[in-house]
């Protein structure tokens, strides 16, 4: 919830100015909207995808660090660990807090707010480590920081397993 507080409490002053002057209100996204549409878990096959990517030059998929919504991610892709871009692997729990990035979707030309929730409760997944840092900031801007364990606020276990990239809203120009 930290990044969330940051938006409300530092709001336009701090974080908002950083990420290209977009509307702080929109940026808050729909993280807490219970009825939000949940993307289905995509079938995942690293080998097939890699082969496919090499042959067809198709855009990077959810098991590639170059996938558009992974622009500010530092961790293991949950899509390689039994989850997907937006779901935690079986037996793990999504982090209660997260950091936020703003990523450009080349398919529709729009910028989206992405909540990077870690998945918690099992040891490091160890598969598909990515380290991208667009808009990432040191921990004095905690809600934009990716070098800290975002499982830190979970009560069952703060153990870091992997990282999801959850689209939480459109980053409208302010």
């Amino acid at each position, binding site marked *: 919830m930290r990044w969330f507080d940051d938006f409300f409490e530092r709001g336009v002053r701090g974080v908002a100015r950083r990420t290209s002057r977009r509307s702080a209100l929109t940026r808050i996204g729909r993280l807490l909207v219970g009825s939000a*549409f949940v993307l289905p878990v995509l079938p995942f096959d690293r*080998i097939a995808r890699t082969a496919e990517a090499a042959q067809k030059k198709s855009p990077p998929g959810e098991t590639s660090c170059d996938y558009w919504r992974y622009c500010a991610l530092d961790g293991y892709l949950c899509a390689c660990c*039994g989850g997907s871009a937006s779901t*935690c692997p*079986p037996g793990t729990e999504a982090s209660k807090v997260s950091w936020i990035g703003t990523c450009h979707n080349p398919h529709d030309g729009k910028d989206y707010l992405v909540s990077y929730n870690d998945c918690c409760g099992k040891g490091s997944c160890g598969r598909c480590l990515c380290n991208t840092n667009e808009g990432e900031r040191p921990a004095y801007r905690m809600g934009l920081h990716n070098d800290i364990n975002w499982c830190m606020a979970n009560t069952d276990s703060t153990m870091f397993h992997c990282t999801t990239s959850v689209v939480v809203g459109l980053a409208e120009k302010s």
Partner: protein
Amino acid sequence: MSTWRRGPAIALAVATLASGGSWADVAIEQVTTAKLAPATPHRVYVTDVAISHIVDGRVHVVDGDSLKYLGMIASAYAGQTTLSQDGREFYVATTYYSRLSRGERTDVVDIYDTATLAQVGEIPIPPKHAQALNYKGILRTTRDGRFLLVQNATPATSVSVVDLKARKFVAEIPTPGCWTVIPSQSAPQRFAALCGDGSLLVVTLDGDGRQAKMARSAKFFDPDDDPLFVQSENLGDEHLFVSFKGKVYSADLSQETPRFGSPWSLVTPAEAKKNWRPGGYQPIAVHRGTHRLFVTMHPNGKEGSHKDPAQEIWVFDFDSKARIQRVKGANAVSISASQDDKPLLFALDGKNMGLVVFEAANKLVQKRRLDPLAETAFLLETQP
């Protein structure tokens, strides 16, 4: 910079967002935990001792058809693993220290639900479980699923009996000089162990899991001239072993006194001359429906080569003892076959720790591989 205020911020957020969700072109998401498709007989559990971080071992769960990585189960410090008889639970006998690598030692059996890969319980056991590389037979359930048998080493050897129904440790049975647990398939409370003098130890439990009887067979293999690999596979209640030099031994556990089959050789005299030998950590697999035996073989075997990766996998008809196929070995150090009627043979490539999948319904044919899967894995188990 304001202070951290958890409650008010959340309340405000929910109010603000109540009407959200309609502006974006990409679907707005909410993070959830993935659900697993029901397990099939082609699901495989690969136990990885992760020796460079041995305190943090793990089990990789993979679908053998799609090669999708389904998830992970913690095996922790040199934890031993096995599936329940019905495949619904996965057991890990392991050690935890209060300070990671020091402090107070606690040994438990962790219970995982194979439908969710979530830990659902633990059973404390004596702090003696074998902290060993993963070999089949170090942790097994009895055929009726009632008891879990945990190989101990202090280094004195014994077996801890855990009542899976009552969820508690019951008894410790000394098995001096013997190793592994080989559960009888017809007498649920009987198990055997291989002994260093070449005999088989046969233990019978009472209804509560305590030792009722114990007997030693005559010597049935020569641990000096031609030791047996400890892994066994069963066809009914006939349990198969291979020796370092490539002989097949069998022991029938359906009676109180084991009956041993006549050893036969996997290799012709010419092949023996070239020192073709079994090698690896889990060098044999069987498909029970078709009575086929798979063995990981390497040429130029010698003293010390018994863990070498396979150059070939050999396929035998167990009834006729005839070799029916030789295929390239994929550097296999461990193999395991699914038991359905479209069986897959899984092999762990010992050189790069990839998982190699063969179709095994008719001819054995390598179909796909996942590289790398593990760090230092030695044990494969397929979903029943």
